[in-house]
């Protein structure tokens, strides 16, 4: 469809599009992003492309593995996946990998 916004196209409102996503993925193109999937898997990779349904193409993707008995806790082990297509409907969270850091409890604990 011509009115769908695809793959980093810079749409300047010439054509009417159904609904603009509140997420502008073009700013993440060629950058490393972190994604979380429904079910708990996490991965990071370089964003190569995307579509309006939030399907992503990631390159040099690494999956962060989890313990089988603690499915939400990441372990130190990784699994290299290479080039992948992430299904948009399965995505829970997208953030740039740059600036993500583990920190001590920032909330006051009493």
């Amino acid at each position, binding site marked *: 469809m011509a009115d769908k916004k695809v793959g980093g196209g810079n749409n300047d409102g010439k054509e009417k599009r159904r609904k603009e996503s*509140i997420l502008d993925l073009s700013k993440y193109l060629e950058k490393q992003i972190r994604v979380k999937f429904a079910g708990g898997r996490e991965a990071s990779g370089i964003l190569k492309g995307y579509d309006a349904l939030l399907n992503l193409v990631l390159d040099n993707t690494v999956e962060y593995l989890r313990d089988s008995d603690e499915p*939400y806790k990441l372990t130190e082990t990784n699994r290299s996946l290479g080039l992948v297509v992430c299904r948009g409907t399965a*995505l*829970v*969270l*997208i*953030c740039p990998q740059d600036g*993500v*850091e583990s*920190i001590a409890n920032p909330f006051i604990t009493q």
Partner: protein
Amino acid sequence: MLPLSLLKTAQSHPMLVELKNGETYNGHLVSCDSWMNINLRDVICTSKDGDRFWRMPECYIRGSTIKYLRIPDEVIDMVKEDAQAKSRNRTEMNKNRGGNASQNQRGGRPGGNRNNVGNRPGQGYGGPGNNAMRLGGAAGQGNRLPHAAKNRK
């Protein structure tokens, strides 16, 4: 008070978002849409068990994975102002729409009659019943329908 109008009003305010998987995200709401997809800025992510924390400059969260959002109390007062402004607009629109509705009603009648003819075999009761509902809808609820459509947009 609609949940999504509250959320929209809460833009730029700090909030806590808990996902269905138990993780919580504290950050400032940048934007949200009608699916409750949200963008947060200056985020602190807390693990389900609450003993690990991550800082992230920004993140996008899919609305369907949200369990709830905690929003600062003061936001609710701001929504009320919005709601009043909206209802004022609404009454004005209703005045305009009133003319349209009566036109619709007039336009609706031939259709209803056609229905009656179509329902002739054995549905003598059903035909007029539907017809009455249709006219009632045009006259009484005609004003609501455009709003429903508008809100869904």
